[in-house]
């Protein structure tokens, strides 16, 4: 099973993302955006990692979404192959219309607005560990295929524009009904609260990750590759393991899910 980690100018998480994918049993390579796009069809799945593609010019993800490689990815998505967008990768998938995948651009990932007790306490870039609650049924989505509904996953985030907003008032209802909301921010006990710091960036309904209607394309703002090994966890986390450098961290479940999805679906 071979995956492509798609790198745009300004992407900066491609190496650790590939290491995390390999730790889950996937093989793969970094695929630069200016390679012939048709070569993408040789791969079984795709990850668009985090960073600042095109320096976030215009707005995060907007310029990369117009690259030919994204047209090729759209075709591969239509064939059912899995795509996971992490942080800036999520922003690119949103700007390209692949997420939530209802035709056109359906949402925006706007500047973070942290609200507590009715007051805006902070805006913009934020970097912290967070807990995600898996909202979808198991096997609903390629990147969370092995997770059960209600499972908690710890991983860090670092972004300025992850606040999911939409002008379509009916969209949230549809995303919820169709189980396209894959992850929500929650506290360490799994409680969702629409207040900073639990809702860490002001996102509508505390949404941290969504998938397309078919479930093969997932985007999430936090970074699973930064918690794929137990040694990456913060010192206060009981799961931290500094001795065994290969011990799995919670984020690895995302990449293991992708692998399992490819095995089951025969992509």
């Amino acid at each position, binding site marked *: 099973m071979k995956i492509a980690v798609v790198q745009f100018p300004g992407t900066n998480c491609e190496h650790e993302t590939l290491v995390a994918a390999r730790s889950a049993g996937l093989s793969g390579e970094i695929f630069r955006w200016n390679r012939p796009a048709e070569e993408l069809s040789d791969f079984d799945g795709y990850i668009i990692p985090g960073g600042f593609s095109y*320096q976030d*010019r215009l*707005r995060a993800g907007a310029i990369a979404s*117009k690259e030919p490689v994204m047209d090729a990815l759209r075709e591969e998505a239509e064939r059912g192959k899995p795509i996971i967008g992490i942080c800036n990768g999520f922003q690119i998938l949103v*700007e390209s219309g692949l997420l939530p995948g209802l035709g056109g651009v359906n949402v925006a990932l706007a500047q973070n607005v942290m609200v507590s007790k009715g007051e805006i306490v902070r805006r913009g870039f934020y970097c912290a560990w967070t807990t995600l609650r898996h909202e979808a049924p198991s096997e609903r989505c390629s990147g969370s295929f092995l997770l059960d509904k209600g499972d908690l996953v710890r991983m860090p985030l670092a972004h300025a524009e992850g606040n999911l907003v939409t002008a379509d008032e009916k969209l949230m209802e549809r995303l919820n009904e169709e189980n396209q909301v894959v992850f929500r921010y929650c506290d360490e006990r799994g409680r969702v609260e629409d207040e900073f710091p639990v809702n860490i960036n002001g996102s509508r309904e505390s949404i941290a990750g969504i998938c397309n209607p078919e479930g093969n394309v997932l985007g999430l703002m936090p970074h699973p590759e930064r918690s794929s090994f137990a040694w990456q966890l913060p010192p206060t986390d009981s799961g931290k393991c500094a001795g065994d450098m290969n011990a799995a961290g919670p984020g690895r479940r995302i990449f293991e899910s992708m692998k399992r999805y490819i095995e089951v679906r025969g992509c």
Partner: protein
Amino acid sequence: MLINLRVWLKIPDAEAVTVKNTLRRRMGYESVLEELGKERLWSIEVDDSVQDPGDLARRLARELVNENKESYLASVDSVEFEDGYVPVRVGLSIEDGEAISTQNRLRNRLGFDMVRGVERSVVWKLALKSPEPEKTAEEIAERLLINPHKDFYEIMT
């Protein structure tokens, strides 16, 4: 009274170049888009009792413009643009935190008590070879310049 500051880079504007290249090389506007420029526009509402708006505009520009790399043009109430391009103003349709912060900074820390409101936007100046340049500009705005779930645009004619 509204004080407008049109601000542009006097060093190369890499963002404008990237947007131009994307439109020409990736989105089919090679023969249509001749040139593209970008300006920031500050629209600052102040008390009508201000006696010398020109002087106030200069003082505001000292805070909002870095003249080592930027130039500006101030006007009162209306904004006018040169001929030869279609100006497309893009701003946030959701709350603009930077505009709020700027207003608070001007009023509460820098002593501009007369400031009543601050609006921040970007003006994309599109030089178009098109029989209907405004219609083409609208198309470009909707295809690239905005995300309709957080931005608005207007053609400033």
